[in-house]
């Protein structure tokens, strides 16, 4: 029973990270209809920067803040410099550009920081809680991860639903021409959307870094599972991204705990196919599905 609780809590904590990456991908998909494979590279870069800042200043929270700010800047930069040129073109071209950027960022990180994985400090203790005499694997740092991700998800939901800025961003994403006619600076909204998405992505990077170590290609699995989670929940739905991330985290945690870690990727495939066969647009899709 303790093992089941351990696996469940662990699943929620890793699932929260997948949720954050999925959220980053969903925000970009909603704004610009691009699957941003470069997200994995972007959060890797900001985590490396955080690692350097923590190493030289000794303060975890300074590194944390720097990573988030760098995420904002990097997201805006990527949208403005690269993505703007392929927006509205063939969808595959944008995918290739994102992949190219992922490869380029990983190569640059290898040049600057080397390919040897380095450790990254957690925000809080990773010694598990003792509850009623049993020692759990769930630690204060996991609590922090889950709380931060949920707080950010709620804040984003509030931003999109209740502020004028959020309304403008949604309008730009759903009906760019109409929004432009009504005076919304659509391009600026896209840039902001990318910046916010990269902000969430860099948060995920810093949160997951203690358990995966920091290396140029070390975050690839996080990106892949984040994308799987986003597809699972439905790419158009931010709540779907959060739920998809948690579901995926739980399933993968049970599979690796009870069946062994070699089946984890296969389990992700099975879950994804099972869900998509029933709901081809993801769990939270609103569109009518296609009949075959």
């Amino acid at each position, binding site marked *: 029973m303790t093992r089941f609780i351990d696996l469940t809590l662990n699943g929620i904590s890793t699932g929260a990270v997948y949720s954050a990456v999925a959220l980053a991908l969903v925000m970009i998909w909603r704004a610009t209809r691009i699957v941003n494979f470069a997200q994995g590279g972007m959060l890797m870069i900001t985590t490396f920067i955080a690692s350097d800042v923590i190493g030289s200043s000794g303060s975890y929270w300074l590194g944390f803040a720097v990573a988030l700010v760098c995420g904002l800047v990097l997201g805006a930069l990527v949208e403005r410099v690269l993505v703007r040129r392929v927006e509205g073109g063939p969808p*595959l071209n944008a995918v290739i550009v994102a992949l190219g950027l992922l490869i380029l960022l*990983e*190569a640059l990180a290898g040049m600057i920081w080397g390919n040897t994985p380095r450790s990254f400090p957690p925000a809080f203790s990773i010694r598990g809680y003792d509850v009623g005499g049993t020692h759990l694997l769930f630690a204060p740092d996991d609590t922090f991860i889950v709380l931060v991700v949920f707080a950010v998800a709620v804040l984003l939901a509030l931003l999109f639903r209740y502020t004028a800025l959020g309304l403008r961003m949604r309008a730009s994403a759903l009906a760019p021409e109409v929004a432009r006619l009504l005076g919304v600076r659509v391009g600026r909204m896209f840039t902001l959307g990318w910046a916010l998405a990269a902000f969430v992505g860099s948060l995920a990077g810093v949160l997951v870094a203690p358990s995966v170590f920091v290396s140029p290609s070390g975050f690839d699995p996080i990106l892949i599972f984040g994308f*799987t989670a986003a597809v699972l929940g439905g790419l158009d739905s931010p709540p779907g991204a959060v739920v998809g991330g948690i579901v995926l985290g739980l399933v993968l945690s049970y599979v690796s705990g009870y069946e062994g870690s070699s089946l984890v990727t*296969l389990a*992700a*495939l099975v879950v*994804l196919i099972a869900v998509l066969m029933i709901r081809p647009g993801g769990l939270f899709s609103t569109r009518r599905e*296609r009949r075959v």
Partner: protein
Amino acid sequence: MSVPAAERPGAGAAAAQPPGARRRPHLPGSTLARSLGLVVLVGVLLWIASELLGSYDDLRLASGSYYFAVLAGLTLLTGLSGQISLGHGALMAVGAYTVALLVGNEHWALVPALAAAVAITALVGVLVGAAASRLRGPYLAGATLAFAIGLPSLAEKYSGTFGGANGLAINPPAVPSWLGQSFPLERWEAWIAGIGALVVVFAINNLVRSGVGRSLRAVRDDEIAASLCGLHVGRVQTLAFVVSAACAGLGGGMLAVVLQLAAPGAFQLSLSLSLLTAIVLGGLGSQLGALWGAIVLVLLPSWTNDIAHSSSLSNQVSANLPLAIYGVVLIAAMLAWPSGIQGALRRIIALARRIPLGSKELDKHSTSGSGGVSHEST
């Protein structure tokens, strides 16, 4: 290499007519005869090339050939049927492991083993394709991505059968004795892979000009209109997936023969991604584009390695330089030539002949819709 008819200068003028009305004045009437002629022509060119090249380049010819087989199938799927697949590396793995098991353990001859690889991969393609035909765009990408990362882990789970991380090694293909004692193994491998590629050229060339090809294009361009015409959209898309899976199986099988190994390390996600990259970079929708893609896949890594080694940079920088160049090439090529190498060449040829590049309509078609699909490939 497959589309000499459509590359003629008449293509610009013909674009205004419906695709079926295009004339091909100087070529034999039947598609079968044209495909056969093309196969013979390309076969002779490949044969001359393999005789002229050294053993290292013969090996590169062989790998270019098996990549071409996979890319031709993938470009049929993405260019002609409008589906995206990030999972073709895993389909190649199915073909490679089939050949390795049959040739290595069961001592089958090469040709039946390759045929079995095609059949089994096509069977897997039926399953994946049936699932895929319900999905669109990014959802399909996500499902096939999970397929690409999920399948290779089977090799490690059932390491008794599939040899775990080390994979399965097979003996090099025996060079027939009538070729002489001194006939290099690499040239024989280039011939095997080249013949496989020719089979793919022949099959796809016939397929895209048949009723099946027209149904594929109809479904890609407008699913509702196609189903009103009586086409079963899901079935047509599944068929496209099966054909491209069969090509991937053949390519994977030939890869196992040429490398004499089937190991999970060769079929990582990066393989699937570079296949997709290659067809977009080459130019979607035509077999010539697949040819350019195969050339890029073979030559780009060795060029970037040469550049990295010739420069006097620190180890840390030069080790990552090939990757960096690859990334820059991808981004720059997509920004500069959105319709790929084949699209850029077509534009240059059109300019050189002072023929306006089709009509505006054609231009719009080839840069929008399901991934910049060229209509000239018909």
